[in-house]
C-alpha cells in the first residue's frame, strides 16, 4: 500500500529529501546583536503603507537592526497588449455603406478533448489554452490549491506556480462569488495573469495562465468550459 501513491516518484522523493535535508544545506545562524532602541520612525498615511511595504523609502531610517537590502523594485502596472487575432470575417468589406465597421467577435478554436489519460487531457488543455489566449504558461490546480500540472513553466516554475496557486487559494476562495465557473484577469508588472475555475467532477478546479498579452474576452469565456471538458 505504501506505493499506491502512483503520482509520487519515490526515487525523486528520496533525491529531494537528500538534497533538502538540513545537514546538506548548511547552518545559517543569526548573529547576536544589540536590541534596537529607536521608537517609531515616523507615522505614515495608510495610503503610503503599501508602497513602503513594497520598497523602503529612500533615506528612511532603518527600523530593524540591519537595514534591509533594497527589495525588488516597485512594480509598475500597465495594460498589456492584446494579441493580434485573424479576422474571422471572410468578407471584410461587408456592412452598410458609410456605417462604421461592425464589431465582430473573435473566433476561438473550440477545445475538443482527445480521449486518454488525465495527464494527457490536461496537457492538451494547457496547450490549447495557451494557443487561444496567447499566454505562455499554464498551470492546473485542484480544489485544495495544489498544483496538478504545468505547461511551459520554464526555469522559474516554482515561483510562477506558487504565485498562481496562491492567487487561486487567496483571490478566488470557494466561498466568494459563489459562481461555479468563471475567470479573472490581472495585469501587473507587464504580465497578464488569468485564473479560470470550474466546478468539475473533482471539485473546484483552477486553470491559471500567465504571459505578456491580454486575451480576448471570447477566449476567456471558453476556459472554464474547457476545464470542465478536460476533467469530464
Amino acid at each position, binding site marked *: 500500500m505504501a506505493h499506491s501513491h502512483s503520482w*509520487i516518484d519515490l526515487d525523486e522523493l528520496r533525491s529531494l529529501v537528500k538534497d533538502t535535508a538540513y545537514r*546538506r*544545506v548548511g547552518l545559517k545562524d543569526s548573529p547576536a546583536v544589540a536590541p534596537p532602541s529607536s521608537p*517609531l*520612525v515616523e507615522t505614515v498615511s495608510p495610503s503610503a503603507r503599501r508602497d513602503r511595504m513594497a520598497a*523602503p523609502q529612500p533615506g*528612511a531610517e532603518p527600523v530593524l537592526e540591519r537595514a534591509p537590502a533594497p527589495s525588488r523594485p516597485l512594480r509598475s502596472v500597465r495594460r498589456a497588449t492584446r494579441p493580434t487575432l485573424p479576422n474571422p470575417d471572410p468578407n471584410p468589406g461587408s456592412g452598410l455603406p458609410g456605417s462604421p465597421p461592425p464589431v465582430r467577435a473573435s473566433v476561438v478554436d473550440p477545445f475538443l478533448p482527445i480521449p486518454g489519460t488525465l495527464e494527457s487531457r490536461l496537457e492538451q488543455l494547457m496547450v490549447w489554452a495557451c494557443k487561444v489566449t496567447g499566454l505562455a504558461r499554464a498551470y492546473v490546480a485542484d480544489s*485544495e490549491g*495544489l498544483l496538478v500540472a504545468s505547461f511551459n513553466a520554464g526555469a522559474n516554475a516554482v515561483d510562477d506556480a506558487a504565485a498562481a496557486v496562491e492567487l487561486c487559494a487567496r483571490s478566488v476562495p470557494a466561498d466568494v462569488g459563489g459562481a461555479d465557473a468563471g475567470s479573472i484577469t490581472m495585469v501587473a508588472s507587464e504580465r497578464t495573469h488569468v485564473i479560470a475555475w470550474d466546478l468539475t467532477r473533482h471539485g473546484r478546479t483552477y486553470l491559471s495562465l500567465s504571459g505578456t498579452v491580454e486575451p480576448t474576452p471570447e477566449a476567456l469565456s471558453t476556459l472554464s468550459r474547457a476545464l470542465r471538458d478536460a476533467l469530464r
Partner: protein
Amino acid sequence: MGTGNEVVRMKSLVIASQKGGVGKTTVSLNLAYAFARAGYRTVLIDTDPQGAIGLSLSKSLTTRLGLADCVAGEATVDDVLVATKVDGFSIIPVGTVAPIETQSFGAAMADGTRLRGLLDALGSRFDLALVDTPCGFGGITAGALRACSHTVSPIQAEPISLRSVTQLLEMVKALGAEGEVAGVVGFLLSMLQTDDEASLQVARDVWEMFPRELLFDVSVPRDGVFLEATAAGVPVGLLRRPAPPVTHVFDLVASELARRMELDSARMVDGPQSLLD
C-alpha cells in the same frame, strides 16, 4: 552547551506546508510553548496575513502592531514584541494586513531580507525563533524559507497531504539553488486518527517513504482538545491542570528538534545536575 556567559546564536525554525489545514498554526504555537517550557528563550513570529496565531490566542493580538508594521517601516522590534506570561516566551503577531495589502506584504517578504533583518534584531534576546507561515508557497513562505535556518513540515495524516510534501521539497531545493535556504529537519505527522484505517495507512506510508532521521517518534493526534484550547485562546498545555496528555507530544518533538538543530541556550547548564543540592 551554554554556560550563561557566552553569546548564543539564535536558530530559526519555519513551519511550512503547501497544503492548508494541516495544523501549521497548532504545531507552531504548541511547539513554541514546549520550547519555552524546556528553557529556551523562544519567540513565535506569525507571518500569516490572516493572523492565525492571534486568532488562536487573543483578539487583542489581532489588532496590535506586528510584523506587517515592521515591514512597512511603521514600528520597531520593541513595538511589536509581545511578552507572554510564560517566562522566556514572546510573540510577534502579524499585525493588521488589509486584504488590499496582502500582495504587497507578500512581495515585501519574498526575498527574505526583511524577515532576516528582524531575526538579526532578535538574535541577542532569544535562543529560537519559530515562524508560522500561511499555506501555499507564495512570497511569504518563500521569504521565510530564505531567511530561516531550519524547516519542519507538518504532514496531515490524510492521503492528499502526501502530495504537497514533494512540492515543499521542490520549493526548498529551488530556493537552495538560488542561495541560502532553511534545511528540512523534520516531517511531523499531524491529525493522526488511530481509529481510521486511511489515516493509519498514510502514517505507514510516511514511515516507509521518508528517512527515519527526518521523522519523529511521536505524531500529533486529531484530538478535540486542540479545539478546546483554541476556543480558550491558550496553548493546549495551558488548557487545564494537569495538562492534557497531548501536550507532551510537543515536549518530545521539541526535545528531538533541539538535538537536530543543535539548539543552544545561555540559560541552560549542560551535564548531570545534582538532584539534592
